[in-house]
Structures are given as structure tokens and as C-alpha cells.
């Protein structure tokens, strides 16, 4: 039985190496003076300097952050509503439809979602004259549509796990449904909403395919700019950009984990 667990540890270790080698290589190459991947030209911060002078990348990054911020806020509102409707509102007309629609974007290939939304926008434009042009607004709409699905699923599973007697107790004490939601339900599902927001932000920031379909000329998001650069081959500024992203995410995850640890400890001492 011991032997089996060594085998398991070995294969799992290989898996973790597989996960991290590419990321570590990105970080190392971002400090490489040479432009060629195979050649080590010594340590240098040159590419970081070039990254911050590249207006195209900076503009695209600002646009992407903008879109991601608005998208995740909208997605959280719509997704929470949908999740709440599906778990706490009993039966209503179209419930099956709603629950089908809310999970479908999760498994829909991006090319299909992107194409279908583009064709919708084009058709709407020719019928109603809205949206007049494709760009930030259409990207936000497209991203909100698939991000709200993720939020809804997270909120739904949190609500399903939650003890309904808490809400019953609040009603017993005289809370009306509206104040019940804001005073009891919302604080309880807050962690799910926060993780839904973060997930939406990342997904929106990360999306290339759907944004490429629905954006218009002159509205290039960060992934679109990276893609067009990377297609032509290895670009050292992109290494620098990737390193910065990895750094931000790693710090975020470490902070989140410490927070969770502390909360766990607090809970233990309280109990």
C-alpha cells in the first residue's frame, strides 16, 4: 500500500511540474536581455521598460479593465437574481427554460456564442438602428451574458447549501421579503457573490474569441492585442506582461488564502 502512494505522489508531482514549468519559464524569459528564447543574454529589465512605453498595450489594457469591471458588476446583479429565482422562488413559468439558459453558456463553444451575438447585433442594428456601432458596449453585453451564468451557478449552489430556516426565522421575527433579502440572505451569500465577481472579472479580462467577434474597428482589448503580437512569434514584452499578471494573481491568491486561514482560526476559537 505504501508503494502505491509513492507512485501516486510521483505522478501528481509530475502534474504540478507540468502546471508550473511554463509559467516559471515565462517569468525567467521576461528578464532575458536577448530577444531570442533559446539564447540567454543576461538579466535585464529592458522588456518591462518597453512594455510601459507600448501605448497600444497600455490602451488595450485600460479598455479591458474597464470592460471587465462593468461586466462583473452587471453579471453579479443579473446572476444573483437568476440564482435566487431558481432556488428561492418555487415554481414559475419558464423555470426550466431559465435554468437551461443559465447553464448553457458555460458549455457553449466560444466561437458559437461569439458568432451568434455578432449576428444578433448586426440584425438589431439593421432593424432598430441599435447598437449603432460595435465596440465597448457590445463587448460588455456579450461578456455579461456568459459571466452571469457563472455567477448564477455559484450563487445557486450557495443558496442550495444554505439552511432555509435562517430565512424562516427572520420572517418569523417580522422581516418582509425585501428586507429579508438585504438583511439576511445577501450577507450570507456574500462570499459567493464576491467569488462570482472575481471570476467574471478574470473571464472578461481573458476573453479573446467572443470579443473579437463582437468588437468593432479600433476597439482592441488586451487579449486581442496580445494575440496579434503572439501570432507573429515570441514577443519579449508579452513575457513581461505575463510576469506582471502572474505576480498580481499570486499575490491575490496568497492574500485570499491567508484571509481564509484567519477566518477558519477565528471560527475555531469562537467555537
Amino acid at each position, binding site marked *: 500500500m505504501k508503494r502505491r502512494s509513492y507512485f501516486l505522489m510521483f505522478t501528481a508531482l509530475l502534474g504540478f511540474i507540468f502546471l508550473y514549468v511554463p509559467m516559471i519559464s515565462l517569468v525567467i524569459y521576461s528578464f532575458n536581455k536577448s530577444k531570442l528564447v533559446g539564447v540567454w543574454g543576461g538579466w535585464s529589465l529592458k522588456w518591462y521598460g518597453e512594455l510601459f512605453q507600448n501605448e497600444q498595450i497600455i490602451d488595450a489594457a485600460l479598455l479591458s479593465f474597464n470592460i471587465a469591471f462593468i461586466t462583473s458588476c452587471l453579471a453579479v446583479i443579473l446572476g444573483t437574481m437568476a440564482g435566487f429565482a431558481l432556488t428561492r422562488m*418555487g415554481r414559475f413559468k419558464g423555470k426550466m427554460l431559465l435554468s437551461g439558459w443559465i447553464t448553457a453558456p458555460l458549455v457553449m463553444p466560444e466561437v458559437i456564442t461569439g458568432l451568434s451575438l455578432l449576428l444578433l447585433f448586426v440584425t438589431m442594428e439593421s432593424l432598430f438602428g441599435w447598437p449603432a456601432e460595435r465596440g465597448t458596449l457590445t463587448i460588455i453585453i456579450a461578456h455579461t451574458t456568459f459571466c452571469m451564468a457563472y455567477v448564477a451557478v455559484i450563487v445557486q449552489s450557495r443558496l442550495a447549501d444554505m439552511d432555509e430556516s435562517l430565512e424562516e426565522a427572520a420572517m418569523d421575527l417580522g422581516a418582509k421579503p425585501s428586507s429579508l433579502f438585504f438583511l439576511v440572505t445577501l450577507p450570507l451569500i456574500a462570499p459567493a457573490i464576491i467569488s462570482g465577481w472575481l471570476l467574471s472579472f*478574470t473571464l472578461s479580462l481573458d476573453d479573446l474569441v467572443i470579443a473579437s467577434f463582437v468588437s468593432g474597428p479600433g476597439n482592441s482589448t488586451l487579449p486581442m492585442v496580445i494575440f496579434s503580437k503572439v501570432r507573429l512569434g515570441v514577443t519579449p514584452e508579452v513575457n513581461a506582461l505575463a510576469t506582471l499578471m502572474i505576480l498580481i494573481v499570486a499575490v*491575490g491568491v496568497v492574500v485570499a488564502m491567508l484571509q481564509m486561514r484567519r477566518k477558519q482560526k477565528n471560527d475555531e476559537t469562537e467555537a
Partner: protein
Amino acid sequence: MSKLPGLARVGEVLANRKLPALVMKVNWGRQMVISIPFLWLAIFFFIPFVVVLKISFSEAAIAIPPFSDLFEWDPDGAYATFKLNLGNFLFLLEDTFYLDAYLSSVKIAAIATALTLIVGFPMAYLIARAEPNRRLFLLALVILPFWTSFLLRVYAWMALLKRGGPINDILIAFGFIDEPIRMLQTDFAVYIGIVYTYLPFMILPLYSVIEKLDGSLLEAAEDLGCRPIQSFFLVTVPMVMPGIIAGCLLVFIPAVGEYVIPSLLGGSDTLMIGRVLWDEFSINRDWPMASAVAIVMLVVLVLPIMFVRNRIGNKGEV
């Protein structure tokens, strides 16, 4: 306000044992909460498919937008003609290029999914069987790459796999090969890319079922004469099947339609339907054809999988 109405409500709750019964009375809020997301999804998720379906039956045209309308008004305005153009679908069947692309996508996605399962299973198993306080850390290690850019993760492999890249250097240094081999722009690179980017989607559902697996079942199997390898296939695998299925679907479905990975890591001969659709749309500007490809993809690949998934239920869902 006295407590009496509250008590009355509790009476109702107890009578019905269901919270919803009472929220039903508050109609306005309820209507809003249901109908806003419903309308949003109807307009931006469902109707688009109707539009795609409609356009797939139209003809390409040099115009803005670049397709003909199904309805054409007679110049006199007296009657409308309805033209249903099946040409796109017929062409899909005629030209084996599309069929090849579908088959090749399924093949590549299936192989990549199997590889992801092979890589992900030991990791999920190890995490689920680790001490509880270490589990969180290991899970974070698995999820962390997922939070960084997908595109950049694919890009990282471009650098690693290229002809003058570190993997070739290492293989040459150890004497496995004499000169650099082509790894980038092959199907092999596409497999690596898919396994790498979708690994968390496999590990998370697997983890959640393995974690719930009752250890005494494995002990019971051994007690009744199973060696560990037998108990793995006779007990562990059937017990974690819902997780395996959920994980495989979460990897397979997006992998079939993948566009970025074959474009960056695959060769020009790596045929995948997502790429075909994109090229049809952006290079050929044949929107009706692109729509037809999308519709067939949806009907042949996605809907059956979603159907299977619903049949199995959401047991292994994260």
C-alpha cells in the same frame, strides 16, 4: 407592527413546508427578479441562435451586412418572397473539408480529454486524500494558473516547444535526439495546450467526488480479497464515475470548439472546426456559411452532450 402577521406567516410556512409559497404573494419584486435575467438571456442568448439559424439559410452577398435577406419584397410591394437557401448545408455535406474538420475536432478533443483525465486523476486523488489543512493549499496551486491569462498560458508553450526552445535543448543535452525536432505546430502541441489549459476543469469535479468517497469501501474491498489495483477498478472508478463524466464534458465541449490553441500551437494542417468557423467568418466573410457550420456543430456535437449531461444529472458538478 405587531408580531401577529409574522406568526401567521410562520403558520403558512409550517403548513406548506415551503418558503416559496409565501414569497409568491409579493408579486412585483418577484416578477422583477425572475424576468430581468430571463429577458436578458432571451435577448442575448436565445434569440441569437434563432438569428444564426435564419442566416444559415440565407445567401452570402457583397453587402453590409454580407448576406441576403430571407424575405424579399417585390418592388411593387404587393407580395413577399420567402427564399430558404439550403445551399450552405448542402455544401457542408458536399465538401469533405467540413466533415473532416468535424471529425478531426472530435478526435483531437477526445484524445486531449483522455490525456487530461490521465494527468488530472492522480492529482485530484492526491489532493482529496491529503491532510485537510494541506488540501486548500494544493487546490489553490491547481487553480492559480487558471486565474492568469489563458492566452498567455498557451503562449508560454509556444516558447517552450519551438525549435530552438528549452525542451529541444534539454532533449539534445541528454542525448535523446541529435537535432531539434518539430513540436510546435503539430497536433502534439495542441494536445499539450488543451491538457494544460483545461486541467483545472478536470481536477475540480474529480476532487469533489473523490473527497466524498468513503474510505471504508476500499477497505471492505481489500478485506474481501481485492488487491489495491483491483479495488481501484472495481470500487474507486465506478464510485467516482460522475466526477469523471463531469470533468470529461467540461474539457471535451470547449476543446471541440477551441480556436486559440490550434491557431497558436497547431500546424496549418491541424484542422479544427472552431478555426474553420472563424476563418469562414473573418477571412472568407461568408457569414451564412459560418452560421451553417455553427448550427451543425450545435446540433451534432453540443446538444447531444448536453442531453447526456442532463440525463446523468448534476452529481459530479462543482
